[in-house]
């Protein structure tokens, strides 16, 4: 699926390391299997050659890791960013989370990343090897032989309505830059809005009550970068999750989504990492949809230094009571 290979990226990284432009490289490290790839910092050339990977399972957004990586770095860090990562990158710069001077960005094209859950659903247990083809993957399994899967069946949910193939921040590009895409990412939100309040309540009750409060959505979110989080307060009642109803989860998810409202670039990491498969991006997208509707189109991270809608106002803003009654007309 991916058009560029790990060798191209390793060569590029090795070149920049040897010329002294950068001191370390941020990318993806191979795991035990083809699909468990983790974001990692490489400082050593042989380590880079042996363990750096790039492929269909590099869905992780690496922008947030730069905050920690650049903190004590003396030399520049090379980072490979996919188009959607560059939006988060810009948003973090807008919030002054790290120093742009310490990062050397190489933009890489992305053909959409694969979701290992979907592959496991189709290919079953015992995956030995996953190799990429032009328009899909071939999976070698222990029990079911070799299975070939089509790209559209295994794409990550968020890649299905990719918002942009354009890099909004880079020092150097590999391949050609894409364009901002037309997409129908608000369709799911609109479908929910069309339901009755009872149906919506039941839908969310069903989804959010599955939450186990692992905080993965918060930890991975490139917009959630507070060093102290309100939900880490042991007094807040987080630990004693009620068995019967899920208010704590509802509150957590409303506040989590609200805290990133206007700053969320819709990268979809929250839904990707959720071990309970809760469609968390639907909460964030609702805020984005409302912001676009009430305060004009706004894409967080499109440019550095843009003013987020919630820290801005006009004298003619919509009244909250009217905002919720809009659907009634």
């Amino acid at each position, binding site marked *: 699926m991916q058009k560029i290979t790990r060798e191209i990226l390793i060569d590029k990284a090795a070149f920049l390391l040897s010329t002294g432009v950068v001191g370390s490289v941020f990318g993806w490290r191979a795991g035990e299997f083809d699909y468990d790839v983790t974001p990692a910092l490489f400082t050593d050339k042989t380590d880079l050659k042996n363990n750096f990977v790039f492929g269909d399972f590099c869905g992780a957004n690496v922008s947030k890791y730069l905050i920690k990586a650049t903190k004590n770095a003396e030399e520049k860090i090379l980072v490979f960013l996919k188009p959607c990562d560059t939006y988060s990158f810009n948003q973090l710069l807008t919030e002054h989370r790290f120093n742009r001077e310490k990062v050397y960005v190489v933009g890489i094209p992305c053909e959409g990343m694969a979701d290992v859950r979907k592959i496991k659903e189709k290919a079953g247990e015992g995956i030995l090897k996953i190799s990429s083809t032009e328009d899909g993957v071939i999976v070698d399994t222990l029990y079911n032989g070799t299975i070939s899967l089509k790209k559209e069946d295994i794409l990550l949910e968020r890649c299905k309505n990719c918002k942009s193939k354009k890099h909004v921040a880079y020092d150097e590009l590999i391949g050609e830059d894409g364009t901002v895409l037309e997409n129908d990412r608000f369709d799911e939100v609109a479908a*929910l*809005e069309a339901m009755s*309040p*009872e*149906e*919506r*309540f*039941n*839908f*969310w*009750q069903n989804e959010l009550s599955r939450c186990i409060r692992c905080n993965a959505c918060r930890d991975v979110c490139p917009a959630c970068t507070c060093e102290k989080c*309100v939900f880490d307060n042991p007094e807040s*009642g987080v630990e*004693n999750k*009620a068995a*019967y*109803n899920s*208010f*704590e989860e*509802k*509150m957590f998810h*409303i*506040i989590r*989504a*609200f805290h990133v*409202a206007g700053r969320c670039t819709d990268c979809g990491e929250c839904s990707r990492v959720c071990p309970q498969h809760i469609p968390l991006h639907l*909460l964030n997208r*609702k*805020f984005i949809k*409302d*912001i676009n509707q*009430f*305060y004009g189109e706004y894409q967080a991270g499109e440019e550095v230094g843009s003013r987020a*809608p*919630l*820290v*801005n*106002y*006009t*004298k003619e*803003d*919509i*009244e*909250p*009571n009217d*905002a*919720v*009654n809009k*659907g009634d007309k």
Partner: protein
Amino acid sequence: MQVNEFKPKIVAFCCNWCSYAGADLAGSNRLSYPADVKIIRVPCSCRVNPMFILRAFQRGADGVIICGCHPGDCHYTSGNYYTRRRMALLFSMLDYLGIEKDRMRLEWVSAAEGAKFATTMNEFTEKIISLGENKRLEDLRCKK
């Protein structure tokens, strides 16, 4: 004889500079509004964090109303404009989650509008009584 009548719990966040004084004026004018409304004074309507509202519902409030200065009249020049944006998004989100949208409200009440304060609270309380108890946002752990 004991009558089992529903007594709603209503939390009103009132801005110190306008609505709180408005409530005061309603009192000195001997206008009546339901005792179910519990006022919490805040320095500005902008002080109201969305979490306050959710916490109020969690701990058993049946309705939450936020009162602030009219747009343009904020004591801190622009606080209420931010409140307006924030609450528009929050109310819309709660509606999206299937919570009855009439349970939360934002009203602009100035210090001179004692009558408006009283009528707003009367109307809001009636609305909450007609909606009944808050079941969707309550937390059973907070029930006695």
